């Protein structure tokens, strides 16, 4: 790209040809006021606040819509620039209400800030101000449309980024209004980003409305716990109470966005029914007790059941969102007692590769590259609801590239599909195998004897060949597996095919996983056949066996197998019939209080320190933003004490950082064991019964989301999954 030399406020700068003045200024930290410009959206140039003075031009020009030219001399503070900016400000304030004292945006409002800088003290206008009726956009976003300055950021976000345009600007001139025209709520899974985008108080967050003023809040960085991307967030809290969660910019993960799920799930912590004291159930009634008694009770029960049954009759289920440190401690503790039954994969049916140890992340390429794929093949992925922000990236790629899907279920995509195949769920692997056959035929010199044997007799159609062509011809291409793939009874077959197709077509592969720390849980050894980093372990029972066979005792950590496992009904019955269920939980409502014998209150997300490993294998550590309420304690501390009480050794950690560092060291020393995939798995028929999809749904994925009130009131909470694919932009 060519470069030009320009000068802004006396600073000599070089800039790319075609960039706008405002981009160059932002880069150089020279502030130009703006309302409608946003770096992630198209240029609308409708607010005119960004007027600057370009010496070669006769009047001030908008910096967001004026491309740089060689030798341009720009002033942002000259009389001409300031004059223009002041006039625009006066114009914007003609109709804007003077209600800052009762406006939720007050203190962090771009209009308020800029009017301090550019506005006059007294308005010259005496006419009445216009009033606009508020719109009902649903339980997440509250509106005060009289405050809208028509920057159209919210409209462009829907149109460009999400691909589902719900908001529009109707009417004309003074009568222009932002809204949906006929009353309808905003239904997208990333809708609340318009709250951040709106420069004024027209769109604000309903759950945190009137809870606090911006200047009273303290900010702590953290990691969102609901999908495998690990979006970066800032927790805004006041006096130990979380007020809201907002995105923290990280270009390689969440850019500047956040899914509604990650943004509003905190409500479970502040409004959910928290377990505040340890409790023991005596003769069917719960009694509050102190930590010492509760822990002693739990330890005695564990020792009894494990001792009598030699570890056979006790099982540990770890929640998807447990931190790396927690998972590591819990498996160390349970294995230390001589019990080997531990698993976090409550939604997996295929355990055929369990005997091979190995840890690796789900992606063999950086997440960010999804933006630039020429071809993306989605396998059984409901990506919009599973990883909403990854869907935005795939959508970005479809601006020039092509997305294709093999999905047994009705998909709802926010991008157009170039090819779509919908096999029966139990024939997913068979359908995908046809793609492999097509790939093998197109790349005969890349296949080995094994593949040749394997695809023997598999035929393919024109459509499979087209998919393969796209993957081969795309300069960058990838195969992306949805969460359902890992739930499929032939998960390992699909995984194997994916990697073979990827190799033959020179594509990347990625597996999306349930929860935010699947990679971390596996690394930590919370699986029945290996300890941390693929270390040796005596094989134990997997989640399916533990939940369906019925054991005498269970330890469940941050998880409700009766809701979130694939065998929810059986799990419930078995938990109810168990002699003892020890629950490490943050909440006391739900069925956990029916079936458990002792409940130990643990800190929720954002209240504990730890590490999540995202789907790319990226370690993201965080510390607690707020203290845990009541007597609840960070789970790693509870597990440490439990470990000591169980007389297992090596539980003298002082901090979670110490555990993390130990694990990091172990990771570096563990040889990169290549997962043994030499022998291709067999392609047998799966039963229809086994491939039913009991999708958890967008707002059901973990105990925290299930208790987030506002999310539960959205239409997405009840109407998932939806059927007809709908893309209209």
């Amino acid at each position, binding site marked *: 790209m060519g470069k030009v030399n320009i000068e802004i406020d006396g600073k000599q700068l070089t800039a790319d040809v075609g960039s706008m003045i405002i981009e160059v200024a932002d880069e150089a930290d020279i502030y130009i006021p703006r309302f409608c410009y946003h770096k992630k959206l198209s240029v609308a140039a409708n607010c005119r606040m960004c007027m600057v003075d370009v010496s070669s031009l006769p009047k001030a020009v908008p910096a967001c819509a004026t491309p740089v030219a060689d030798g341009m001399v720009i002033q942002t503070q000259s009389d001409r620039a300031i004059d223009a900016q002041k006039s625009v400000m006066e114009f914007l304030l003609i109709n804007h209400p003077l209600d800052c004292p009762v406006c939720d945006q007050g203190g962090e409002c771009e209009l308020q800030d800029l009017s301090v800088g550019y506005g006059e003290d007294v308005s010259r206008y005496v006419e009445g101000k216009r009033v606009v009726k508020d719109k009902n956009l649903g339980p997440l976003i509250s509106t005060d449309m009289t405050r809208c300055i028509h920057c159209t950021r919210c409209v462009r976000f829907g149109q460009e980024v999400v691909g589902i*345009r719900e908001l*529009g600007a109707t009417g*004309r*001139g003074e009568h222009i209004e932002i809204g949906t*025209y006929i009353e309808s709520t905003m239904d997208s899974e990333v809708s609340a980003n318009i709250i951040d985008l709106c420069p004024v108080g027209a769109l604000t967050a309903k759950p945190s409305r009137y809870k606090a003023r911006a200047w009273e809040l303290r900010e702590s960085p953290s990691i969102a716990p609901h999908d495998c991307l690990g979006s970066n967030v800032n927790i805004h809290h006041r006096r130990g109470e979380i007020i809201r969660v907002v995105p923290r910019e990280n270009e390689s993960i969440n850019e500047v966005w956040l899914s509604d799920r990650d943004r509003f799930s905190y409500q479970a912590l502040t409004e959910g029914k928290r377990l505040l004291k340890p409790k023991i159930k005596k003769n069917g009634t719960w009694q509050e007790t102190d930590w010492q008694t509760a822990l002693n009770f739990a330890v005695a029960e564990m020792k009894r059941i494990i001792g009598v049954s030699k570890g056979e009759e006790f099982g540990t289920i770890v929640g998807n969102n447990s931190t790396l440190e927690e998972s590591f401690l819990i498996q160390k503790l349970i294995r230390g007692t001589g019990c080997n039954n531990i698993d976090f994969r409550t939604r997996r049916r295929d355990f055929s590769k369990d005997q091979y140890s190995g840890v690796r992340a789900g992606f063999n390429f950086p997440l960010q590259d999804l933006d630039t794929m020429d071809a993306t093949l989605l396998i059984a992925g409901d990506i919009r609801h599973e990883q909403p922000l990854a869907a935005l990236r795939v959508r970005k790629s479809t601006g020039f590239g092509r997305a294709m899907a093999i999905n047994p279920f*009705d998909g709802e995509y926010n991008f157009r599909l170039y090819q779509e195949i919908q096999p029966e769920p139990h024939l997913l692997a068979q359908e995908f195998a046809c793609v492999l056959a097509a790939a093998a035929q197109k790349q005969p010199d890349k296949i080995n004897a094994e593949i040749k044997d394997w695809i023997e007799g598999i035929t393919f159609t024109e459509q499979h060949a087209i998919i393969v062509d796209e993957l081969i011809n795309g300069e960058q291409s990838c195969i992306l597996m949805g969460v359902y793939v890992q739930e499929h009874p032939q998960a390992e077959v699909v995984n194997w095919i994916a990697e073979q197709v990827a190799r033959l077509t020179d594509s990347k592969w990625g597996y999306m996983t349930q929860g935010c720390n699947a990679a971390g849980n596996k690394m930590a050894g919370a699986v029945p056949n290996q300890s941390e980093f693929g270390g040796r372990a005596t094989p134990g029972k997997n989640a399916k066996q533990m939940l369906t066979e019925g054991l005498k005792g269970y330890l469940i950590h941050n998880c409700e197998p009766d809701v979130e496992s694939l065998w929810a009904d059986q799990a419930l019955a078995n938990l109810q019939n168990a002699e003892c269920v020890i629950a490490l939980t943050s909440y006391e409502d739900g069925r956990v209080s029916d079936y458990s014998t002792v409940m130990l209150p643990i800190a929720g997300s954002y209240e504990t320190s730890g590490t999540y490993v995202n789907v790319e294998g990226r370690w993201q550590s965080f510390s607690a933003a707020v203290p845990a309420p009541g007597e609840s304690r960070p789970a790693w501390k509870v597990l440490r004490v439990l470990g000591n009480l169980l007389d297992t050794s090596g539980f003298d950690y002082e901090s979670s950082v110490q555990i993390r560092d130990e694990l990091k060291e172990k990771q570096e020393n563990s040889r990169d064991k290549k997962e043994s995939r030499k022998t291709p798995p067999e392609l047998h028929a799966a039963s229809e019964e086994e491939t039913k999809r009991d999708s958890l749904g967008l707002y059901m994925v973990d105990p925290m989301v299930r208790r987030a009130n506002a999310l539960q009131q959205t239409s997405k909470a009840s109407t998932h999954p939806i*059927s007809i694919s709908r893309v*209209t932009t």
Partner: protein
Amino acid sequence: MTDLSYDKSLHLKELIPQSEIDEIDCWIKKYPNDRKRPPIMPALKVVQENNGNYLTTEMMQAVAEYLDVPHVAVYEVATFYSMFNLDKMGRHVLSVCTNLSCSLRGADKVVEHLQNRLNIKLGETTKDGLFSIKEVECMAACGGAPMLEVDKIYHENLTEEKIDQILSEMAAKDLPTQEDK
């Protein structure tokens, strides 16, 4: 299973006759394939004319589905341009320009006089369903400001007398065909 054959064009086809659909198709052909929004305006015009000079929400939605654009994109166009009517209109629509030139030359007097004569407010329709008055933007007849348009005919350099004359001519024209009286 996703019904990929779900035909989004059906809705509009149910609402208007095939000849009108053909006319819309003809407009669609005039624009590049991947540009779906330009035909919104001509399509709305066709539909409005077919529906006695106004559009319903259902029709706007049907147009959106036919053209494969978001519903709101059609609402935006229909609410922006004053030639689209979103309510049932009188037999004769008196469109008064109140844009700059006309306002400078007394458009407000025109509006006032019309309101008094017909005993309705701007944007309303007389009880007998004969007349509606509405405010429109510049009709490119600034040279003859103030102006108003009735049934596609421009009347310029308006005075109160001229307006009275227009109204009585309209009423006279209508008498023989008034089936509702």
